[in-house]
């Protein structure tokens, strides 16, 4: 086991450095903008650390149900894409595939941008 700071605390310290020290240290608008973008990416990384195992499992379980076999999320996603493109599985609005990809988009946003989900009434 590593000494503290733990992973979340490491991310948080770099995030504060970017948001507070870098942004204050320059008048260059592009650098200030990119520092805020970088800080936001660290927030995403922090949420991914805590949420991802749970969300990834839910996505894989749904994929296994749709495709009728076990596998890794990436294998199953590739197969799903192949079957959608070949027209071998119905993927229009209202189908189980549609419900699955919508749930997956919401799950991606729980990590990438929960504020957006709240605005969209999915929070």
């Amino acid at each position, binding site marked *: 086991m590593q000494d503290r700071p733990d992973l979340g605390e490491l991310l948080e310290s770099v995030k504060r450095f970017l948001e507070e020290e870098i942004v204050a240290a320059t008048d260059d608008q592009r650098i200030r903008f990119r520092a805020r973008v970088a800080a936001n990416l660290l927030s995403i990384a922090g949420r991914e650390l805590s949420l991802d195992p749970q969300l990834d499992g839910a996505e894989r379980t749904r994929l296994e149900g749709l495709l009728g076999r076990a596998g890794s999320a990436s294998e199953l996603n590739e197969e799903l894409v192949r079957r959608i493109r070949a027209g071998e599985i119905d993927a229009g609005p209202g189908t189980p595939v549609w419900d699955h*990809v919508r749930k997956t988009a*919401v799950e991606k946003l729980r990590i990438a941008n929960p504020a957006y989900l709240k605005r969209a009434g999915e929070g």
Partner: protein
Amino acid sequence: MSRFSNDEIADRLQAFLAKETGGSARVEGLRAMPGGASRAAYAFDLDVAAGPWAGRHALVLRLDLGGKIYEASLERDEEFEVLARAAQGGVPVPRVCFRSRDPEALGRGFLVMERVDGETIGRRIVSLPELSDARKALPEQMGRALARIHALDPEPLGFLPRPWAGSSPARRVLDGARGELDRIGGAHPGLEAGFRWFEENAPESADRVLVHGDFRLGNMIVGPDGLRAVIDWEFASVGDPHEDLAWPFVRDWRFGLDHRRFGGISDGEDFFSSYEAASGRRIDRARAAYWEALGNFRWALGCLTQAHRHLSGAEPSVELASLGRRSAEMELEMLDRIAAIAAGSA
């Protein structure tokens, strides 16, 4: 980013402009302007001592970068032709003062245009208190400007991308999107499900107009009086007018004010009715809803494409990387727009 520093750009630009103006030209205060992922823009002032250009000019340098967001963007010379035609047709655009194809000057083609005073950052246009009158005027001004754009004759602009005979504007866009999805790789089942629906529901339209291709609030120069100029013509093509009519409704172009469907500033009825009055065309609401959903798809894909420029090593950038994680916002909106159309409630 350009491979030159700002000082080098200023020096080289000064040498170029001295030749062009036939006198002693001084480039002052050159600085990068925000925005522009495939193109760098720099503001500067030009001081010319004598000759036809004598005086001080507020200008913008538009410089090509290595990467393109979309494969189908225009070359500088082509953009110049489109801008000239738009100006002739009464569309408010910045005047192009100089252009160079000489790669010696700055390494790539560029345009030098007049600098129109005003705001172009969408999130500021939707929120700055001093632009509140502008926000009231903009939808109708944009409707009239778009009517003028769609009245331009695209025929002399033979380089513009256009649908093959027997194809349609939507199919041309979908062909491009298919190629891009395959090029960036990875499995994107949500976008693939959307893509399939767009293919099965592509409108066959006989309408062919000059499409601006990126007609949204962030590509308008806005002053307290409203619209001053329409910029960023690099994605112009020949296509269906509903492509431009729907693009400013795409959710990300509402800059956080989601409940105001048109650019975060109105419900869009004022935009549509001024366009109809000025153009004499009737807007097909079902076709506009299709293009709005497709617009969200294209921006979802555009985000992945930009992230790919970072991931492939072509252009390492934290900003491009971040767009990869924004794609899901447009993906969700695309799915919900399509579901609304399918349910008859779009």
